[in-house]
């Protein structure tokens, strides 16, 4: 007679397990207070704020251009997209025209950034699940993107590349060709990742059907990005509320079917492919020369009023809400942080699950604590 058969008679005690804040799989400094009964999770309480730097408060004392480097430090795996989200909101507010070549350069760096960020997710997620080698492969490929960014703006992680009305630097000679080469290279590599990971039986066992939620829950909790699309809902702001020049490109919005961890992994992989498609098209049609910074007043003053606009970031909808009095500094700046909002669902996802699934589910939500805590 085994103990498991007599489940009702086995005495279990509720236990409090403290995960983090310094835990390698929490992607930063997230602390989870997990209540477990035997191996089953009864409740989870995420504790955040360890990386809170008060970006929103600091921004109130900064001129608009000075805020851009602060956005680099939000989601530090996708700094280009953060740069753009802020500049885009200010441009909308001021009704500024952005030169063609700048728009193309922006789209190229943003999609390359999305690729880098998604690669990082795949590597880190597999590492969370115990697979070491994918992490090394993605880092080698991501390094090439980081090098390309280093060439165009002189930084590897915190780029500060975009400006209100365009970008700071034009691409150095030969840079666009290097990007084209890289796109071709990664397209071939794509199949390797697919074969190495997607069909792996251990990986499938750990992720299929785990951490499922449906579209209704996702919408109620305000989830966005891949978390929402994994439930089969094609919500991508590049299509739903087109910004920049995304309406000129041909690309698909991959969606999941089950809303489980596997779908969320696989969508990251598929989106890399779509981003590469966009970069390819942009490289073909980018004007060969021209200004990269529009006619922008020396001192940027947003007209009095309030403005909100969001873009499709690497982790979901990244938005900036600005209240302006018409001065050179915002009266209030609020960041709609996709990681912060996506993380809210975690207790719901973990309740009733086995303790062994905590890391698999947390990893697939794809958070960056720099953004969660802002």
């Amino acid at each position, binding site marked *: 007679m085994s103990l498991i058969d007599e489940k009702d008679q086995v005495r279990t005690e509720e236990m409090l397990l403290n995960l983090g804040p310094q835990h390698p799989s929490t992607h930063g400094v997230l602390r989870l207070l997990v209540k477990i009964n035997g191996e089953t999770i009864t409740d989870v309480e995420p504790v955040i*704020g360890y990386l809170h730097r008060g970006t929103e*408060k600091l921004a109130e004392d900064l001129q608009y251009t000075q805020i851009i480097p602060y956005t680099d430090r939000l989601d530090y795996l996708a700094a280009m997209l953060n740069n753009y989200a802020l500049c885009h909101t200010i441009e909308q507010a001021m009704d500024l025209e952005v030169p063609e070549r700048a728009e193309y350069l922006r789209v190229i760096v943003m999609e390359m950034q999305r690729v880098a960020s998604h690669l990082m997710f795949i590597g880190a997620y597999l590492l969370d699940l115990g697979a070491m080698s994918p992490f090394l492969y993605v880092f080698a490929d991501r390094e090439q993107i980081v090098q390309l960014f280093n060439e165009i703006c002189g930084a590897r992680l915190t780029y500060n590349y975009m400006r209100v009305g365009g970008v700071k630097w034009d691409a150095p000679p030969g840079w666009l060709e290097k990007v084209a080469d890289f796109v071709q290279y990664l397209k071939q590599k794509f199949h390797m990742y697919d074969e190495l990971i997607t069909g792996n039986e251990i990986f499938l066992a750990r992720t299929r059907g785990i951490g499922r939620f449906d579209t209704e829950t996702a919408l*109620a909790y305000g989830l966005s990005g891949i978390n929402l699309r994994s439930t089969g809902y094609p919500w991508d702001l590049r299509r739903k509320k087109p910004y920049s020049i995304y309406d000129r490109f041909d690309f698909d919005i991959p969606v999941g079917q089950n809303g489980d961890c596997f779908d969320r992994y696989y969508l990251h992989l598929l989106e890399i492919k779509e981003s590469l498609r966009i970069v390819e098209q942009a490289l073909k049609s980018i004007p060969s020369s021209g200004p990269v910074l529009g006619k922008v007043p020396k001192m940027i003053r947003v007209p009095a009023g309030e403005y909100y606009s969001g873009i499709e970031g690497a982790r979901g909808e990244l938005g900036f809400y600005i209240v302006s009095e018409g001065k050179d500094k915002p009266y209030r700046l609020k960041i709609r942080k996709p990681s912060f909002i996506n993380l809210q669902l975690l207790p719901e996802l973990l309740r009733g699950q086995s303790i062994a699934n905590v890391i698999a589910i947390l990893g697939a939500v794809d958070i960056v604590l720099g953004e969660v805590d802002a």
Partner: protein
Amino acid sequence: MSEDREHRTPPKGPEGKEPSVTAAERPKPVSKPAAASGAAVKPAPPKKAPPPPDPRVEAAKAKAEEIRKFIDQQLSTEAVVETGAAHIHPMLLIRKEDWVAVVELLKRSDAYQLNYLECMAGTDYPNYIEVVVYLQSTELGHFICLKTRTDREQAEIPSLCAVHPGANWEEREIYDLLGVTFTGHPDLRRIMLDDDFKGHPLRKDYSAWEA
């Protein structure tokens, strides 16, 4: 302490009109002493013609008015205090007492289906604290801005958690950083700062030294 940390006048709406501030609250216009000296004053340069109204703003205002009529019919004629435009999006200022009812009505109604809470923010103004939500209808494409206001001293607003569960952490953040109590919130605690932190940093009169 720099002047920037002091209270500032409320920002004007995008159309140059002040958002509804009652006459008593409105800052008095600064009198011009130079005007009294008469002849010495140069004639004012001819004013530039005002720019033509933005059709997007006009459309947003019209839509806000349309939503107001809908709320008047379905709920109460006193729920909507003011309509206008927040940049190019329809904006409605809602009475605090009807805050949850209006958000719920717009979520459940077939005509609007505002089912997705896109952004929630709180702002400290000199005489009140304003909470704003941007709501999106994922099926019909409507995108509107709703606002409500509360007193600064006893900041209190009903919680939206029952209608939009996603408002949970957003409201905790506003409670933490702006000191607005959300009545009916299931778990109202500080989220970014320590539990024993004093003060609410996003308030304009917050000072790290005094706290």
